[in-house]
């Protein structure tokens, strides 16, 4: 097998993918008990968002602080379907209006709102998981990028959207379940999602989908589109003067990131069994950025590692030293920006890889010339 510059993977990248696959498919299920594996399943759903961010922010230079919006929209679409399945007239016979979700009954609603009705169908719900976030991203993207709004303004406005959606969900309790979110989800087409076996199956579904998303991301990065994105990030005007429609590329990558986040949200709902506005707002949205930043904003595999590591650290810290976690997270934000802006992936390609290759070369008798490691930023995996 040859690894030319134009094939989908370089040798290093392929090894990176295989190592990550080995960790996620073999190592983690082998060493973790059911409870921990379920937790890692949850972290994997964040990794979807982080991969999307690596494309938007790392490659495209668009920092969105509203990824939680798309994560939440995807998650809510899934949760609505599951909630409707759980609210059969038999299950809800004690309500004054049987057959509607319990929180609607508590809020004196007597019939299902019209926009809930399509979510009786799994097919529509699955389509909505991707289409709703993408449509939303399309509207924001067209409005903003066509007017050449970018950088910090874009970040602030996406953050405002995260705030708006949270307030809206909490305020419209009767339609959305309010601050508690949509809870008590039971089955998916009759398959109980609450059992340990189901959680394990979902973990693997998550992992497969994540690799699907990673392949798409890798394809995008390697394609001409990916190169234009990086060119745009570095010299937007020059790309524009070369005749490219900069806005369309930005809109596309932003929508792709939204689609990834939507899938992640839907999987979160399945894996964890609820969806709530605490996953939509400003704080979770900006935390999703740190997953990507810790992993290395330029690297899609790094984003996955970042999501897993930061969340794992969060869980272990909050279990033993709840007060220290915010110091740790705050310090992480500062450290990642000040000390290692390319994250773990940067440390790997800049510090560890050169040493390993040197070591190998020395072992081989120092005859073979040291293979040039990739110094291009975009070559970092």
């Amino acid at each position, binding site marked *: 097998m040859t690894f030319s510059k134009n094939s989908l993977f370089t040798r290093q990248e392929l090894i990176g993918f295989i190592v990550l696959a080995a960790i996620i498919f073999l190592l983690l299920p082998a060493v973790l008990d059911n409870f921990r594996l379920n937790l890692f399943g949850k972290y994997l759903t964040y990794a979807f968002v982080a991969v999307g961010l690596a494309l938007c922010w790392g490659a495209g230079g668009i920092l969105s602080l509203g990824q939680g919006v798309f994560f939440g929209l995807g998650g809510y679409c899934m949760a609505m379907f599951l909630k409707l399945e759980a609210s059969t007239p038999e299950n809800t016979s004690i309500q004054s209006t049987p057959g509607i979700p319990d929180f609607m009954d508590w809020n004196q609603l007597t019939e299902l709102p019209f926009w809930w009705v399509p979510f009786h169908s799994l097919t529509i719900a699955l389509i909505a998981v991707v289409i709703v976030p993408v449509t939303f991203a399309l509207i924001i993207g067209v409005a*903003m990028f066509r007017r050449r709004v970018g950088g910090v303004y874009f970040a*602030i406005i996406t953050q405002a959207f995260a*705030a708006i959606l949270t*307030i809206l969900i*909490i305020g419209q309790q009767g339609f959305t379940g309010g601050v508690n979110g949509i809870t008590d989800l039971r089955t998916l087409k009759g398959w109980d999602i609450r059992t340990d076996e189901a959680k394990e199956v979902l973990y693997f579904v998550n992992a497969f989908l994540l690799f699907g998303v990673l392949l798409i991301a890798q394809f995008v990065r390697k394609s001409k589109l990916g190169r234009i994105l990086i060119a745009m990030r570095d010299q937007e005007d020059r790309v524009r003067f070369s005749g490219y429609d900069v806005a369309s590329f930005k809109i596309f990558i932003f929508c792709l990131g939204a689609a990834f986040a939507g899938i992640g949200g839907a999987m979160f709902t399945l894996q964890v069994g609820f969806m709530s506005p605490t996953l939509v707002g400003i704080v979770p949205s900006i935390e999703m950025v740190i997953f990507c930043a810790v992993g290395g904003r330029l690297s899609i595999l790094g984003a996955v590692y970042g999501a897993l590591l930061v969340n794992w650290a969060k869980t272990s810290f909050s279990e033993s030293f709840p*007060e220290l976690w915010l110091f740790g997270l*705050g310090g992480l934000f*500062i450290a990642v*920006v000040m000390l290692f*802006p390319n994250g773990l992936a940067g440390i790997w390609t800049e510090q560890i890889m050169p040493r390993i290759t040197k070591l190998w070369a020395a072992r081989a008798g120092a005859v073979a010339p040291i293979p040039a490691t990739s110094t291009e930023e975009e070559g970092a995996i």
Partner: protein
Amino acid sequence: MFSDYSMSELGAIFAMQGFAGLILFSVFVLMALGLAIIFGQMGVINMAHGEFMILGAYMTYLVSNVFAAYLPGLFGMYFFVAMILAFIASGALGLFVEWSLIRHLYKRPLDTLLATWGLSLILQQLYRSVFGAREVGVSIPDWMMGSMPVTDMIEVPINGIFVMVLAVGISLAVYVMMFRSNWGKQVRAINQNRVMAGAVGINTEWTDRLTFGIGCGVAGVAGSAFTMIGSTGPTAGQLYIVDTFLVVVFGGAGSILGTIASAFSISQAQSIMEFFLSGSMAKVLTLLVVVGILMIRPQGLFALKLRK
């Protein structure tokens, strides 16, 4: 929705809600002024702005306790001491943060955003460890209690008036500093052309640091004023940060007048709608309108014409 009320009642409602809006306006102005200096003039996104404000609020809390314990005779005057101390504390922290963090990141605005967010998390946890997770309130001096009747249907609280007066005073002070002082002239020069400003002998590094410090100090004073109308908790700053940024962006970054105008329109819209809709829907609608207008006119209401 108007038909249930008589004409005079409607008038009173609008007046009272308008006044509530004026208090909200004062709070917005106080918070946004510091941000308008830092974000508008320097282009630095300071996500920890709310925490600088809360620092001012906690300083006021400390000073009020000290006065209550040691100088009960002068308790009526403690607020003015507190305000000055709040300015100094927040300003000093601002100088330190600029020196240790911000100055390394001027070329990377998005990274500044993330780093200051990290700073805000650390400060929040620090406040929680020092002052406890519960909200604290200060005891307001007697002369600020109660309300003033304007007509038989309309009453206005005195602490609200005080905060409004303060907002006007600080706006004037910022205006004078910005447009009449040497420092203001230098800040505006740097904003227009950094390289040339440096070439004519302005110490750009020091001016940046001072600007950041003053912006943070103003935030501290805002927090100090904030204690007069609400209680202070470790995470109170985070609640307002998005609103404040929207106020500044909506007004047109770099324009002090624009900031005030946008604070006025946003706060009035929100508080008048609050009476007829639920609080959350009023907020959602206001934010949506603001974001909608920003999409049509990204440069904000009053944009400075600059060549970048």
